[in-house]
């Protein structure tokens, strides 16, 4: 299953909600969700721990727009919109954690 998260984890609990609910699959960070994937962010240890269960992706355009594409946490895969489409196609279900 693909979990789509569009909120910063320091502002809202969307990503926490995914980690507490899901038991694996893929997480795609988009919009303000991409802040979760930055080095030195207070959420970084949680994200790294989550990598044991989830494959983490972040939308390249959203990283670049926010000036953080050069400090993406190791292990996070950047994807473009075409990659976003592939992730949706490759997973039977997806959930946007609004």
């Amino acid at each position: 299953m693909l979990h789509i998260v569009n909120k910063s984890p320091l502002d809202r609990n969307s990503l926490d909600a995914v980690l507490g609910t899901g038991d694996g699959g893929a997480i795609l960070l988009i919009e303000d969700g991409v802040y979760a994937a930055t080095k030195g962010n207070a959420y970084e240890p949680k994200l790294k721990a989550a990598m044991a269960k989830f494959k983490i992706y972040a939308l390249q355009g959203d990283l670049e727009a926010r000036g953080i594409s050069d400090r993406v946490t190791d292990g996070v895969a950047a994807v473009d919109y075409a990659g976003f489409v592939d992730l949706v196609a490759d997973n039977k279900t997806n959930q946007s954690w609004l």
Partner: protein
Amino acid sequence: MSGDIKKFMMVNRKAPYGTIYALESLEVVLIAAAFEQDVSLAFLDDGVYQLKKGHQTKGIEVKGFEKTYGALEDYDVEKLYVDQESLTARGLTAEDLCVPVEVMSRAELGKLMEEQDVLLSF
């Protein structure tokens, strides 16, 4: 509609009245039921506040919709799942809710999500 039945789950994570999502999501539930789909509702995080009984909306001059949850069973929508952890974190128990629900752990709710065809979040 050629008899297609899919499993639809409406995922509710937002409290009522502060935003319109809870109300407009109920409208989706009723339509999905009219299309005779396999509909379930999940309530977690602040979404559990939607079911807190005793809404009195006269003071804010907004139409209350607590009664609609009670009417869901008339539409054969009987699968209402509520996250235990979210209730506890808000000082609520199943007795505080306006309709009978199935309370389960977050992990169990997560498993149910995996089984759906369509997840709509509001």
